[in-house]
């Protein structure tokens, strides 16, 4: 009986096979690299027949003819193809958005479908598309809730990342971890980055003390096991030019304007024959260069055996500046070695070491007296060079020479560049070494040590120079040098215990400790009288002069953090998910009584689409998850030792004709200084529609920062902190709330066999509000003009750093209008027709400082990103754009001297009744038109086409014959165009103060930003 049944079965199967079987074979490659993928599941659709690819990505098996083959691999989009008898070539595209993708969440990973926090990921593909010079740019417009702004377009300039708004008036930068250790994003080569994960909500509470500004987790690329050696080489050449020049007055327009201005001021006309001056010098043309090269090369090789993997890379980047030739330049070299090894069956080793070497030259920018400031202030009537070829000296003012009243600060920008000499070098080694030990099946111990060690060197030469009596005149040459060594390490040790009970209750428990120490020292000194007044001799060793003052300084620091954390994640059948975390931190930033803090959080999720009742809806809505989180995070990003009163004040007097240095109390201590606490609430949903073709993520969040650390919080002057070198104490004195929502939608599909496309859009709306300041009505900051009151404030009921000044109400057209309005004398001068009419905001019939009010704020109401990618056969096209709406900017790059050049909007000025209600008259007489008002505040909303790129991959069948897996050439443009009404150089720039003194109160003030370059790129990717 048994044998009969067997026989029947055999006949059935064999006949089935015989009649219809087909042997299919082929190879599966990764789209991005052209490399074969081992271990891909190849199955016949709706059957159990299948195989997996071998080490070379090859497969071969018998299938019923007419079968549809499904190729699937974790982390890649599945592909379905008709089985054919010919050798099949299948390309799988990595997909960062698959639900099975592994997402790093801090001290562990989760599958995307199980993530219960607000977590966004930028994939290596996006990074490769954007080819960021600095990796921060990869977050610009690609992730909701993250706003990235440039500090400057200068080569090597930094970028600022703000996650879900600005919640502190000091450093609002997120915590960055590279492969688990605290590090920085700057100086990474983009091709070394596998993914960037952003933790935006209480999910980051596992990082306790340092997570309040959000957490950015960078994962570097690793080799894959059982993979042959593969090489890839990428290069591009870019040609850069400025993305914007300001329309300024030419020489004739300038002379006419001055004539009018002098006439209005009751003075004789300076230029009797303006038209004879012609167009004159275009100073911007003089300072901006075109076709400035940027060159990048990187090469990497990777592979792996059964037990080890390796990934080695090297890169070189060389970027010139669009201003100043070799005075503005950046180059960077990196080398990286990543390795993993299974030392024992249950003991895995991993390491990654990155060496970076960079060099930067820069010049004075974004301030009064910067190169661009001078280029837009210098009148077109002056030529850059005199007849003898020397730089023209711009005069300070002589009543007999027209157009000469340029004051003490405006100098020839070309001379300024020529006299600028500085050099910055950085060498850094950073990396991590770790072990994972599977103690037994459910329990893993992870230990790892990550470190950064860097040396920074700076050298600035201040040549002896005269600009003709300007403040930049330097009577004595000097060279400033500094050497700074900075180190830190992060040591983690934690247990992960996973257990499933009854195939329904899944637990993951994590328990561990983190130790962080940062330490270093700096030494700086100045030497005087540089031989030959030349850069080549600018070293302290060669200087011969000295001054009767201390010209050397140093510092040393050591800050530590000790943390314990525990996390329990539980889910019921993967459908109901909860996690709870707690972290205990001790930080040396705080006094003995305030060192310890606890940071708890909970997250939860419900995968609705897994519910049985969901059944039929799944066709439309293939996946739906609701999630929520709440937790407390901390911020300790303040300077050291603020809880101790130390003698670091300035105490210098002159005794017996010599400088005498003594001591004085500097920073006033606050023994009670403690953490900032961020209370983060988030509800969100993740949806997949139409068979995962549409992907939606939406979140609503409320982020409340309490106990905001306000450094230098003004206190009563009687305690003496207003003296030289004195600082007010740092106090936990504010509360700021950021609330809003984020929405991201992606759609990808294919049309026909060959046309794939994807569209992604994300938008973030944030409302920022200060809800408390203890001990002060408001804090103020920023700067406007010269000698004017601080233009920005932090004040309850307003946005951080909102603009505070006078509200304008048009232009006085007639004397009758002037007479009918309260006197504006208290604002600086009695008004005349053609002057700005300032609003009597408080309605008391008197115009004075009490009429100042909110006239704008620098925080965008909404930021959004948009990207598009198309693939058709060998062609690919990507476009990235981002936009910022509702952010205001203060136009502060204009000097108010009578004879300097002006922006051409002044051509629309008031010249008589009815001529203008926006731009006031020009005059050399006293006027209140230049006081800080909304006349100087502009809407700096913008939309920037960040990157457009067209690539072509040469048919792999062809290139493989000559040994290349993939050869792709591309051309593209970075910063193609910026749509904006803003008049200045760059609406996308922000000014968050210096690294040593970060502040959010400078944010929207434009001192003449160095515009980002527009770059025409030509590139090549080759994989062997």
């Amino acid at each position: 009986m048994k044998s009969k049944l067997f026989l029947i079965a055999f006949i059935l199967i064999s006949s089935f096979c015989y009649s219809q079987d087909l042997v299919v074979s082929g190879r599966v490659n990764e789209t991005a690299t052209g490399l074969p993928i081992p271990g891909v599941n190849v199955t016949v659709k709706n059957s159990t027949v299948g195989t997996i690819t071998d080490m070379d990505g090859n497969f071969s098996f018998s299938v019923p003819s007419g079968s549809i083959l499904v190729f699937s691999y974790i982390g890649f989009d599945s592909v379905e193809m008709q089985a054919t008898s010919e050798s099949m070539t299948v390309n799988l595209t990595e997909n960062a958005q698959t639900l099975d993708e592994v997402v790093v969440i801090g001290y562990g990973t989760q599958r995307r479908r199980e993530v219960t926090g607000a977590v966004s990921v930028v994939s290596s593909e996006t990074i490769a598309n954007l080819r960021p010079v600095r990796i921060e740019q990869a977050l610009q417009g690609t992730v909701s809730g993250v706003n990235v702004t440039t500090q400057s377009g200068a080569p090597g300039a930094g970028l600022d990342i703000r996650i879900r708004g600005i919640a502190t008036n000091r450093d609002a930068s997120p915590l960055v971890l590279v492969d688990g250790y605290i590090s920085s994003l700057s100086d990474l080569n983009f091709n070394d980055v596998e993914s960037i994960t952003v933790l935006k909500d209480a999910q980051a509470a596992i990082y306790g003390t340092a997570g309040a500004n959000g957490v950015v987790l960078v994962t570097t690329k690793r080799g894959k096991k059982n993979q042959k050696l593969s090489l890839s080489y990428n290069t591009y050449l870019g040609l850069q030019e400025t993305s914007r020049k300001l329309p300024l007055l030419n020489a004739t327009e300038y002379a006419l304007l001055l004539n009018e201005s002098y006439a209005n001021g009751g003075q004789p006309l300076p230029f009797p024959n303006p038209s004879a001056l012609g167009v004159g010098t275009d100073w911007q043309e003089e300072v901006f260069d075109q076709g400035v090269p940027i060159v990048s090369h990187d090469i990497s090789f990777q592979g792996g055996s059964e037990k080890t993997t390796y990934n080695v890379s090297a890169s070189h980047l060389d970027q010139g500046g669009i201003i100043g030739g070799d005075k503005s330049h950046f180059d960077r070299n990196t080398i990286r070695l990543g390795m993993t090894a299974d030392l024992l069956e249950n003991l895995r080793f991993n390491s990654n070491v990155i060496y970076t070497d960079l060099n930067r030259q820069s010049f004075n920018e974004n301030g009064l007296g910067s190169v661009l400031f001078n280029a837009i202030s210098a009148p077109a009537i002056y030529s850059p060079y005199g007849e003898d070829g020397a730089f023209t000296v711009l005069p300070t003012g002589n009543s007999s020479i027209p157009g000469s009243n340029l004051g003490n600060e405006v100098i020839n920008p070309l001379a300024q560049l020529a006299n600028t000499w500085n050099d910055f070098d950085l060498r850094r080694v950073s990396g991590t070494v770790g072990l994972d030990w599977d103690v037994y099946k459910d329990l893993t111990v992870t230990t790892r040590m990550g470190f950064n060690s860097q040396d920074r060197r700076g050298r600035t030469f201040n040549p002896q120079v005269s600009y003709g009596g300007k403040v930049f005149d330097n009577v004595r040459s000097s060279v400033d040098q500094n050497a700074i060594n900075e180190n830190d390490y992060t040591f983690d040790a934690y247990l992960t215990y996973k257990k499933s009970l009854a195939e329904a209750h899944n637990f993951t428990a994590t328990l561990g400790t983190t130790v962080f120490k940062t330490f270093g020292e700096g030494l700086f000194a100045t030497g005087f009288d540089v031989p030959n007044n030349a850069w080549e001799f600018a070293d302290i060793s060669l200087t011969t002069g000295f001054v009767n003052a201390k010209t050397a300084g140093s510092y040393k620091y050591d800050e530590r953090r000790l943390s314990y954390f525990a996390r329990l994640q539980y889910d019921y059948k993967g459908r109901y998910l909860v996690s709870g975390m707690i972290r205990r931190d001790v930080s040396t930033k705080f006094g003995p009584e305030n060192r310890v803090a606890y940071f708890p959080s909970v997250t939860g999720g419900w995968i609705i689409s897994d519910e049985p009742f969901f059944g039929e809806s799944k066709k439309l809505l293939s996946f739906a998850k609701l999630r929520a989180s709440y937790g407390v995070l901390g911020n300790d990003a303040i300077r050291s030792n603020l809880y101790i009163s130390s003698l670091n004040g300035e105490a210098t007097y002159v005794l017996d004709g010599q400088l005498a240095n003594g001591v004085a109390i500097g920073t006033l201590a606050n023994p009670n200084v403690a953490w900032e606490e961020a209370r983060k609430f988030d509800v969100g949903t993740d949806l997949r529609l139409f068979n995962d073709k549409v992907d939606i993520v939406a979140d609503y969040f409320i982020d409340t920062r309490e106990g905001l650390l306000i450094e230098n919080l003004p206190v009563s002057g009687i305690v003496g902190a207003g003296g030289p070198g004195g600082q007010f104490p740092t106090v936990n004195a504010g509360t700021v709330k950021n609330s809003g929502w984020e929405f991201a939608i992606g759609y990808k599909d294919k049309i026909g066999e060959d046309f794939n496309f994807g569209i992604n859009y994300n938008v973030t709306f944030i409302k920022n509000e200060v809800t408390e300041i203890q001990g002060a009505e408001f804090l103020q900051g920023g700067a406007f003009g010269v000698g004017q009151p601080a233009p920005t404030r932090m004040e309850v009921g307003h946005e951080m750093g909102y603009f505070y000044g006078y509200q304008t109400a048009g232009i006085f057209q007639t004397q009758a209008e002037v007479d009918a309005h309260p006197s504006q004398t208290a604002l600086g001068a009695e008004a005349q027709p053609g002057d700005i009419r300032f609003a009597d905001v408080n309605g008391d019939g008197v115009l004075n400082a009490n009429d100042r009010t909110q006239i704008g704020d620098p925080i965008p109401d909404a930021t959004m990103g948009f990207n598009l990618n198309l693939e058709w056969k060998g062609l690919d096209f990507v476009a990235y754009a981002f936009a910022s709406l509702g952010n205001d900017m203060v136009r502060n790059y204009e000097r108010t001297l009578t004879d300097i050049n002006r922006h051409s909007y002044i051509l629309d000025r008031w010249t008589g009744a009815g001529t203008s209600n926006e731009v006031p008259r020009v005059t050399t007489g006293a006027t209140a038109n230049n006081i800080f008002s909304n006349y100087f505040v502009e809407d700096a909303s913008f939309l920037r086409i960040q990157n457009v790129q067209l690539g072509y991959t040469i048919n792999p069948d062809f290139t493989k014959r000559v040994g290349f897996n993939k050869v792709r050439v591309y051309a593209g443009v970075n910063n193609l165009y910026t749509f904006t009404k803003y008049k200045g150089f760059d609406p996308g720039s922000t000014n968050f103060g210096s690294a040593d003194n970060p502040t959010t109160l400078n944010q929207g003030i434009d001192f003449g930003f160095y515009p980002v370059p527009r770059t025409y790129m030509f590139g090549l990717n080759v994989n062997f």
Partner: protein
Amino acid sequence: MKKMKRSIITAMVAISMMMGTVSCGDDFIEREPYYLIGSENYFNSEQDYNNALIGAYDLLHATYQQVILGEIAGDNTLAGGESANDVIGWQQIDMMTHTSVNSNLKNIWDWMFSGVNRAAYILEFKDKTDFEGKSQIIAEARFLKAYYNFELLKWFGGIPLKGDTRFALGDEKTIPRSSREEVFAAIEADLIAAIPDLNVVAPQVGRASKGAAQALLGKVYLYHGADDSSKFALAAEVLEEVINSGSYSLVSDYNSIFEHEGENNSESVFEVQYTDAQGASFDCLQCVEGNVAVGFSGPRNYVGPQFTSGFSFNVPTDEAANIFEAGDLRKDVTILNMDTWAGTYGPGYNDTGNFNRKYIPRTRSSTAMGDLNLTNPNNYRAIRYSDVLLMAAEAFARTGDAAKGSLYLNTVRERAFGNASQNINGLSGTDLVNAILEERRRELFGEGHRFFDLVRTGQAASKITGFTPNKNEVFPIPLEEIQFSGNFWAQNPGY
């Protein structure tokens, strides 16, 4: 089962290893800050006291603003500058439209209280370590505390006092503003305590001598006399001690006083010492070791001999430029008139063509550090011997001793005219006092005394445009300070 047991053991080992790192934790977080001297562990040696004393002297540099505003607020000069909005706080004080929101007044409050606290810091620890010569240091600290408190009194009236200890956070809510009388008493007590311990010749040029403390005490009594006329006699007494000490004399050439060579000369009773040896920036004006007022007072875009350019603030009015009698050698030293001077300049706001010649920038040394606008090394002659003579003359005149009043007045006039031909004789009582006050204006023009002389002698309302009696005699307490005190401190009347 055996395997399970082993797993449990290894797990225990793993956990205890982790706990090993945990237990070292408390030690790990105990670290001493590097190279940091705590303020409460100081004063262990003579040098420590000397260092702290230098810190207390440092704030004298920050008095530059009182000097320039002492002129601008009065009838001698206009604010000037680049435009009507240039340093708006000064412009408002010039027009007497200033309010309690004025960053420049706030600076005076902050910087002078910083000086008070730095002096009190020394006094607080005066008994900690003994060494020879300590009494001089303690006396200098008292002198400085008195100096700074007197500035605060002149500007703001009654202020909070805390004796020989520093103010602490929270004191603004518990220590009331003392009355003017109490502040006078405290200043006088500090100076009286300091005088016996101070050397006749200061240990270093720039430090306070006995004569400096006596002269300051005389000045304080003279101001106090406006409230309590019994103090005039005390003023006369102590000022005459300075005169009779023989330590000071008038130099013959008035012009030489304000040049570099004339610094710390025989006429200098107390002088704030400035230098161009250290660089400076606008970021921290109170940190500057140069005389900031000088750069601000220079002619804008000046090209010519002897002087260098500045920001054209503090410009003398035409009326003020004409107060000098014929033959008065002081006029050309005091007023630089660009119409007659061999130099060019760019007219600024309020331009009169006149500049405060005593304190405008001289041609700079080749070793001067930048920013040159801030690092002018001109010392401020805070108390000149001629001031002592005129104060003594006034004190004697007010106490009925017209002979001594005239004597000291004429001592000053003889130097001014180079002979005794212009001596004023035969006056007494109010006439003599008025003559002395007129002489003060001519002798001390541009040196920061004018506004307060007008106020203390009751002439301000008649001389200063916009001056409101019973209000503008003092300046408002900065609004921020009233707020910090939670309205515990009352604002000055009228503000």
